[in-house]
């Protein structure tokens, strides 16, 4: 009897999960399907689920509409550059907030939390003016430097570092390990799932970011993929949605690959936190 209840509960759970998964995945499948359709088929009603004719040329058309290889390279440089800088700043900051008592700690951490609450659009103008003054506008630096430190990363890592048992650190200190060493060789490996998750969030966000690169750059040499994709969109009507979606497919492909590779760690991170 118990087994039947358990089995049926499992079934219900699975159906629920499948529905939720479908809700999340469907827009992506729809994008993929649209990317292969011809324009009349995109407009067709009732819509077709799968393309009747597979229009591979949409991808070529999207790719050739601008220097997409350059955009891709820039996107990689920016997203990876930001990631490295954010790790270098977030790890020591989070370690200090989690493990040291110093005057003004709560105030400073409060400031970090405030940072989480102000949207970037509110303050893009002063930062633009500042970067312009340094002659950095329209360089890759203007895309990387403003994001060199991440409040979200500091917050997330601090929580992870706080969960490391005191005994581990005590033991390391008894062995004469320097604080620097404790931080990088003990704390960081123990927070690996959180680090991976944060890295992924950061990478995806900056890989997809449109507003900031658009504001900061003027020439193709320093522009990123999302701007290339957006330039497929025409104002005042007449956008070729199939080509647009093909461009978006190109955009999200690397993210999908990374996600599949890092999947294990992400799940771990969330289980770890829910305990």
């Amino acid at each position, binding site marked *: 009897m118990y087994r039947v209840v358990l089995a049926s509960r499992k079934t219900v759970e699975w159906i629920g999960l499948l529905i939720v998964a479908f809700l999340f995945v469907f827009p992506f499948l729809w994008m993929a399907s649209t990317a292969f359709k011809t324009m009349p088929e995109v407009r067709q009603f009732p819509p077709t689920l799968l393309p009747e004719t597979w229009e591979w040329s949409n991808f070529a058309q999207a790719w050739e509409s601008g220097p997409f290889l350059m955009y891709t390279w820039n996107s990689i440089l920016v997203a990876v550059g930001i990631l490295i800088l954010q790790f270098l700043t977030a790890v020591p900051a989070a370690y200090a907030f989690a493990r040291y008592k110093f005057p003004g700690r709560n105030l400073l951490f409060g400031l970090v939390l405030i940072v989480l609450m102000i949207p*970037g659009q509110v303050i893009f103008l002063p930062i633009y003016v500042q970067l*312009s003054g340094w002659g950095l506008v329209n360089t890759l630096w203007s895309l990387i430097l403003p994001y060199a430190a991440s409040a979200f990363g500091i917050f997330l890592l601090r929580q992870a570092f706080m969960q490391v048992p005191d005994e581990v650190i005590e033991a390391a200190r008894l062995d004469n390990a320097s604080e620097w060493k404790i931080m990088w060789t003990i704390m960081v490996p123990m927070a690996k799932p959180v680090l991976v998750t944060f890295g992924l969030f950061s990478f995806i966000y900056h890989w997809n970011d449109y507003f900031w690169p658009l504001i900061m750059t003027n020439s193709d040499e320093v522009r990123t993929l999302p701007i290339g994709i957006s330039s497929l969109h025409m104002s005042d009507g*007449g956008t070729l949605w199939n080509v647009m979606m093909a461009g978006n497919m190109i955009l999200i492909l690397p993210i999908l690959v990374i996600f599949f590779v890092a999947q294990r760690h992400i799940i771990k991170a969330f289980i770890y936190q829910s305990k």
Partner: protein
Amino acid sequence: MFSMKKTGTILCALTIGLSGVLAGCGSSGKEQSASTGSTSQPAASTASSGPVEIDFWYALGGVRGKTIEDMVKKFNEIHKDIIVKPAYQGAYQENHSKVLASVAAGNNPDVTMVEIASIAAFADAKVLEDLTPYSQGDEKKYIPGLMKNSYWNDKLYAVPFNRSTPLLYINRDMLKEAGLDSNGPKTWDELVSFSQKLSKKEGDKITRYGFSTPVDIWFYEALVFQGGGNILSENGKELTINNEAGKAPLELWSKMVKEGIMKNPPGENYNAWDVAEQDFLNQKVGMIFTSTGSLTELKKNAKFDMGAAFLPANKTSGTPTGGANLVMLAKSTDAEKKAAWEFMKWMTDTEQTVPWSIASGYMPVTTEAIDSAEMKAFYEKEPNFKVAVDQLQYGYPRPMAPGYKELQDVIQKELQRAMLGQATVDEAMQAATEKGSKLLKK
């Protein structure tokens, strides 16, 4: 994920502010106000030797963006003393923000596209250069119907470039089948009677609507003009839609929706436009309002005889225009300004505007262009494009007020509330007027 952007940018601001090593973000308030206040930085003069470089920002993607790049290339080949550097800056709104930021930072472009209802905001902020001394009467070459958003305080600030206008798109086959005049309805009354005849019901379900239009400020403006009204008072300081002419469009539309002969397409902003166009192509609706910008694409995909007609008249005919104008920025140096005018003039000359119009679907901007052999041949083949230009005789300016960019969102929200039955027409207009007056007083 959303918080990530906030995080980085603000942390930068904070670390900069806190560390005290790098002065900067603290003084931003002052510089920010410069974008909306007057900016009177002395123009640094460039040496007269060598070609003058000017920056041109545009806001059109896809094939249209490509065409612009090609035009600039051609200009640069012909003009050895000027180098124009074009840059795509996103859609109108994004370009708008970016121009404001760049003016504040002092690295603004010399020429840019500006959506026509935003000209007043830029001109009022003294960001734009008065073109009168440059054009010296040259502006007479443009079609008068396209010049109505070019002036602010009697000074010329903009020249028309990529311009559109709303049209009534009709499914001629459907109209013929219903025994209606295949040239479409001429008046509001006819719009209603045509729609009644075109709509179809199966049981309780409506399978075909006669008419559909996005509840958008642009079409609302048109219908207000047609009722003899205007959105703003003469001096641009008051909202004048809480009256008969202002309420008539909403009353017409909501009556038609209630009767089941008009579909209110769902979707935020331009999504509703896409829905209307999609329904039209799939023959779920017989007539729609949409922009001239969609002529080429709809024509290509329509499996029926598609026509375009003037917007139906109420007390009078009337239509706004849309799209963007070219403007020159006040902060550029004299040499740059001279080159900038040369460029603006060339881009909008008959020789350029004709192929531009044919390639992009926008209207040509000079009167001479309409009479040119090339344009005439094109109109012969595509008479729908001619309809757009002909309609310009009934053209009204889009409302000119510095705060109109924000105001139009306020009005549009109230329009939608009324259409969805969340407010009566009277309540919606009352609310729009109250909220709008506050914006206009700023």
